[in-house]
């Protein structure tokens, strides 16, 4: 077995461990019902943390073996970066656990990490050779520091989500209930994205089409999802390939749109199924799990993770980024979309801190802000890398 196979297996071990740990935490909270079994609850919780740590070590093992195998830090394509982000998120959770000793944090942190890793695995997993501009030790320093900063900031959203799940009354109609359910619906959509990719991959779906791009050049494209939307003037190359239902104009990348629509479709079906089976909103389903959490403490954990993560993010995503940009291109700032979105993230958390310190935005307001902040981080990862063209574009 070569090093890259070992690396892949370690990642699988990590994924399974996080899955088991999630169930264990669920169990620890379930058994904390007022039958006086608090001792059993802590035992389940401790076991969950141990399993999480084992998963994290396996994940770290994946990272290091892949690094040794490829000779370059494994953060340079979508699969590698997103997987690493998931790892740092788990690392941040473990760190916060040892600071505050609350397992409930894992109830949200672990599933989110699972979704992130699952989504990462949908991208091509080979090692990509580095273009000249990425051949720098700043790749290692800048990307890892920025990702660590982002993952600690993400913990504030984890704490915020738990906070909101507890305080927002799932039975009372209102804006808050709607938006919180919308956040969870969004998570289901990502699960839908993964499910659709896995399913079509399992049946080996692949069709090739040629199309005319906006510069009127003929190109080819591979569809791994059946085409609801076809590229501009597309013609099937694969024999017996399905005709797209709707053809899109050249300035829309129909293949990406197709994936988004499939995710929405599958995600919505999943969501509707959950609603039909449980006969409850998801927030109502989760509400009993967070009843025992201490709100004051979760508010503080949310704030604390912004305090810890913000300086690291500033250092990694802005300062180190500027130093590298100066070294590679002779300008420390070039208004590249990724740079702009790093600045937006930074400005947003600066606003969070000022609102909290001076305007007393604590509790619910703070928790909502933390969720929006995580939304910006995810936007910066997904949309800026895959949709907006720029220096950090992987599309």
């Amino acid at each position, binding site marked *: 077995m070569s090093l890259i196979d070992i690396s892949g297996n370690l990642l699988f071990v990590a994924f399974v461990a996080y899955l088991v740990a999630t169930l264990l935490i669920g169990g620890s909270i379930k058994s904390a019902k007022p039958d006086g079994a608090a001792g059993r609850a802590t035992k389940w919780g401790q076991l969950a943390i141990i399993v999480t740590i084992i998963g994290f070590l396996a994940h770290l093992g994946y990272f290091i073996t892949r690094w040794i195998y490829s000779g370059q830090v494994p953060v340079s394509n979508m699969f590698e970066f997103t997987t690493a982000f998931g790892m740092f998120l788990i690392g941040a959770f473990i760190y916060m656990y040892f600071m505050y000793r609350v397992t409930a944090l894992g109830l949200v942190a672990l599933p989110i990490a699972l979704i992130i890793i699952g989504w990462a695995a949908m991208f*091509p997993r080979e090692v990509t*050779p580095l*273009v000249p501009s990425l051949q720098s030790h700043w790749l290692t320093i800048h990307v890892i520091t920025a990702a660590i900063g982002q993952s600690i900031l993400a913990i504030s959203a984890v704490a915020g989500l738990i906070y909101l799940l507890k305080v927002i009354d799932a039975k009372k109609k209102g804006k808050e209930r709607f938006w919180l359910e919308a956040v969870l619906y969004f998570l289901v959509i990502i699960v839908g994205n993964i499910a659709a990719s896995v399913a079509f991959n399992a049946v080996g779906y692949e069709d090739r089409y040629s199309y005319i791009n906006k510069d009127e050049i003929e190109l080819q494209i591979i569809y791994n999802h059946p085409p609801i939307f076809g590229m501009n003037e597309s013609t099937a190359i694969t024999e017996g390939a399905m005709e797209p239902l709707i053809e899109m104009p050249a300035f829309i990348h129909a293949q990406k749109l197709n994936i988004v629509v499939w995710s929405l479709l599958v995600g919505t079906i999943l969501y509707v199924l959950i609603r039909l089976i449980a006969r409850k909103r998801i927030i109502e389903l989760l509400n009993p799990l967070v009843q025992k959490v201490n709100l004051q403490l979760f508010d503080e954990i949310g704030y604390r993770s912004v305090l810890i993560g913000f300086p690291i993010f500033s250092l990694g995503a802005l300062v180190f980024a500027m130093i590298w940009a100066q070294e590679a291109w002779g300008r420390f700032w070039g208004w590249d979309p990724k740079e702009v979105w790093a600045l937006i993230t930074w400005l947003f958390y600066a606003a969070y801190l000022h609102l909290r310190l001076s305007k007393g935005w604590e509790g619910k307001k703070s928790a909502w802000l933390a969720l929006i902040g995580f939304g910006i981080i995810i936007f910066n990862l997904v949309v800026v890398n895959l949709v907006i063209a720029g220096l950090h574009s992987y599309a």
Partner: protein
Amino acid sequence: MEKIVCACGHENPLGTKICSNCGRPLTEEGKSQKVLDMKYDGSAIRSKTHNKSFVDKVWNFFSSVKVGVALIIILLVVASIGTIFPQEFFVAAGTEAGKALYYETNYGSLGTLYYNLGLSDLYSTWWFQVLVGMLGVSIIVASIDRGIPLHKSLTKQRVKRHESFMRRQRIIAEGAVTEGDPSKTLYSVEEKLKKMNYKVRHDGSALLAEKGRFSRYGPYINHVGLIIFLLGVMLHQLPGMHVDESMWIRDGETRAIPGMDGYFLESKKFILETHDNDPTTAQIQQGVAVIAKNYQTDVVLYKQSDDALPGETNNLEVVKEYSIRVNHPLEHDGYSLYQMDYRLNELKEMTFSLTNKETGTVLGNITIDLRNPKSEYVIDENTKVELMEYYPDYTGFNDEGKPQTATPNPNNPAFIFNMITPEKPKGEISFVAIQQTVEGSGASENTYKMAFTGVDTINMSGLTIRMDKTIPLLIVGGFIFLLGLAIGSYWNHRRVWIEQLADGQIRLAAHTNKNWFGIKKEIDALTEYAHLPQYVDQLVDEKEKEKKDE
């Protein structure tokens, strides 16, 4: 100025919320609060006390955190709009019309709207810069407005505080010691607090323990750093502060470096290397055949000798030899040369044969250097070719029927020759471009033609030359910013007030600017060690009570 006289007799400036002497709340609001607002305890903020003159109004506007946050949010939203479509500097088009066309063809009517609204060059618009400037002013004003009173309140803290102050702290304990001799309590409290790195001060039977006070200065330090950084960015735009030039250099060529007076650069060779990997899935999907591995220009940097005339290329002194690569610029004397672009197989020379159209007899060959063409090429006494016009980047005929060139680069050279031969001593005019020979008026009667025989190509390297005198300022600003951020984020300002009352009872109050979880752990340890009465967290207990009421 008016004063507020506290019950203890101390005079406080107007606008003070908490008496700087004893800590009694001075406002009705403060008196009704269960837990005091401790931000600037004992000091008045200028913006809250002056509200008359125009200057006061401007000051109050910029000192408001609400305004500051609003500016941050506006800037954030505006910045995001600039990423919807590529900004103009990422667009290859050179002319205004070309840019307009780019947005129209790529993004349709939305693109045109984007371009016409000026959003395609958003970050250099005056209003974007005004927004950044306003945020800068807000940072300065708010920091002075709040920083000075904060400094005052922190440096003139009294040890002994009034019970109305103590009881309005979030953490409060009152009662008898739970064990042992009460007369020793203060001694053991002090011992324990010192072990936990608190600085302890006494005033009779009262003590104040404090640690991490410097962390309160963190936000102000990081604001200073930000202002220095913004100052550097502003200075950058002044003339003479920076150089931003670019040059194309061909293999083997020696050229003066633009923006770097007295320096010359010789390019020995441009090198392009590619990875020899098996194509990855991403490569196949995107139709990318090979991935670049290295862009490199091997160069020699020369300096003119001090007594040389400007532009003189004799007597050049070698400064250094270097291989410029991406991420590895050539650095000298504050200037840096970056590998930015390249062109392979750039046309260098073209060779033509002066040929008799009927017989095919060749009178001779001429070779034209496309960057430095000569005006005539002599073959022998009676035979020569005059180069009458040269169009390096021929793009067809203009409205007046004259040939035109798009750029000075020899991408598609075209020539008008006058061929002087023994048979035609007055000369014959011929227009020659790649793939076509259009002869002048009545040219079909030409006896001779310029037959294309060969081309010689060369590689070119695109370099940028940069110098920025503001970099040191940016580094200082960035460093101070990070330092302040770390100080403000990773340390907490914790204070514990303890008083032993006449009857031996203990009153303890504690405050921290953040991380209540941490201070509570310390007070827990203190309580256990010195057998103090159990404290209550007024905010948490309040919430618990609310829940029970529901």
